[in-house]
């Protein structure tokens, strides 16, 4: 993997953005399919219990195998009642709140026959049970187990009804009622999943914000560290930053030096020298094409200019250099409120930096041209390789 991947903060912001998107998507899925997840988890948690209840119903049928009138035989026989009660008691767990055996009388009222509940909650024989769903009657037609989900009972989540048949006719119903505890536990797990995701999302989001703020600050600081405070053009740090990555095919390189700058400093002082440098920087920034060309203060009174080649014809780029040269020469440099001086510059140009191995070599050629310009009396532009 490219080392720039870790150096470039854009990628990290992108990665954080992808993580946030993924977590939001996950949360959306959980919210969207919460009921299905709850249902599936409940099914997984109760499947074994439903099988056990079915087995229990089969066992009760076996116990009653010598009876041809289940209801009346149970009502009359206390021993049989106790035996069946034991079977029902075995079904009761922290999650199965009640287990009981009912019958339906001729008025379609459901009544208790045997109840596996503890004594304080035990229903009496023949005590009626007001049912809360018509699904109870479906069992008598389909002769198959029925699951009834309770939506408004506070303490029960669902009931499982298993028919007990005699000669293909439903005579008794074995009922188990699930407490809401299991459903609450499942809901708690879902809530925990949601809370956990929210928590992670919040942390990632905070990280994202912190990172974005740091990134902006970093960019600002980097910008400051790359700018020469006196002239407002790029400084040498920036040159180091781009010298390996700048595409030399795209640019023409010019080295610019202010003529007799030492004399200006010696005659008018360093404050005026600074004014001259600031003015030159200002002219450079106003003359080059801001989006395309690059100006760097190389050191002292020397500047490097990268002029972008817009076409095969190098005249356009050279005209930018010519404009820089003229603008500086014609500009009144005020050394105080009334007095001004004119200054000139020498410029050396390397028109084909791509012929060099790297920037340093290309710059060296521009510097040679600059040397030639100075040698030939200054205030001129020299192009490397041209007399």
């Amino acid at each position, binding site marked *: 993997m490219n080392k720039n991947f870790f150096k470039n903060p854009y990628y990290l912001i992108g990665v954080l953005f992808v993580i946030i998107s993924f977590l939001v998507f996950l949360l959306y899925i959980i919210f969207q399919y919460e009921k299905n997840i709850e249902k599936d988890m409940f099914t997984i948690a109760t499947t074994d219990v439903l099988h056990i209840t079915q087995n229990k119903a089969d066992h009760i049928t076996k116990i009653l195998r010598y009876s041809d009138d289940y209801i009346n035989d149970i009502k009359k026989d206390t021993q049989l009642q106790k035996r069946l009660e034991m079977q029902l008691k075995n079904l009761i767990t922290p999650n199965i709140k009640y287990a009981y055996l009912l019958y339906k009388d001729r008025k379609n009222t459901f009544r208790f026959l045997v109840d596996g509940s503890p004594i304080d909650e035990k229903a009496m024989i023949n005590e009626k049970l*007001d049912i809360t769903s018509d699904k109870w009657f479906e069992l008598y037609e389909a002769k198959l187990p029925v699951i009834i989900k309770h939506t408004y009972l506070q303490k029960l989540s669902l009931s499982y009804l298993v028919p007990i048949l005699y000669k293909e006719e439903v005579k008794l119903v074995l009922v188990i009622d699930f407490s809401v505890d299991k459903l609450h536990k499942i809901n708690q797990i879902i809530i925990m999943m949601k809370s956990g995701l929210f928590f992670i999302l919040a942390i990632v989001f905070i990280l994202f914000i912190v990172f974005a703020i740091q990134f902006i600050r970093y960019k600002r600081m980097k910008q400051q560290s790359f700018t020469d405070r006196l002239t407002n053009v790029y400084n040498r740090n920036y040159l180091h930053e781009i010298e390996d990555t700048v595409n030399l095919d795209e640019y023409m390189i010019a080295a610019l030096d202010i003529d007799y700058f030492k004399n200006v400093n010696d005659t008018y002082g360093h404050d005026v020298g600074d004014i001259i440098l600031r003015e030159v920087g200002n002219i450079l920034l106003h003359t080059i094409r801001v989006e395309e060309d690059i100006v760097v203060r190389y050191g002292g009174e020397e500047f490097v200019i990268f002029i972008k080649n817009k076409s095969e014809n190098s005249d356009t780029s050279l005209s930018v250099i010519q404009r820089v040269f003229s603008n500086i020469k014609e500009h009144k440099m005020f050394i105080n409120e009334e007095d001004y001086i004119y200054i000139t510059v020498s410029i050396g140009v390397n028109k084909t930096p791509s012929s060099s191995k790297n920037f340093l070599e290309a710059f060296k050629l521009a510097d040679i041209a600059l040397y030639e310009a100075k040698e030939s009396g200054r205030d001129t532009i020299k192009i490397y390789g041209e007399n």
Partner: protein
Amino acid sequence: MKIFTLLLTLISFAFSDQYVFLVNKYDKEIEYEAKIILKIATSSLGREIKLFIPDISEQEKKIYSEYFNLTKNCETANFIFDNKGSLTNDCKKQNKLFFTNNYKKLMENEKYYGAFFWSKSRPNIVFIKQRLEANSVLLSKEYLKYIEDINE
């Protein structure tokens, strides 16, 4: 520090359901019971109900008083809901409508003409046909399915 405080706040909000014990529990079951008793008493008496609940708790008083004119004694009431089995003998001698919340007590004590009780966490209503007749109570149609004939 700001991030730490923000994280702590987020965690507190995320687990806010853990702190509901700090709020007074309002019993929905009592409210539901009060509404049912109001409907039954209205259907049974057909006039203003003066309800007496022996040994009424503060929570019950708070909820029931929203629906009923509660009396402090048996004498001034016209409907007695005995939900704790604490009816005094003096009260039992009164000619009032007695209602219970216990199926067994309904079967054992013929003073009660009906019961509203929770069986297997489900609300159940029972009226005894013979006792309705003895108290000259004519229930509305919606309650007919709850009437039981103890002689059957």
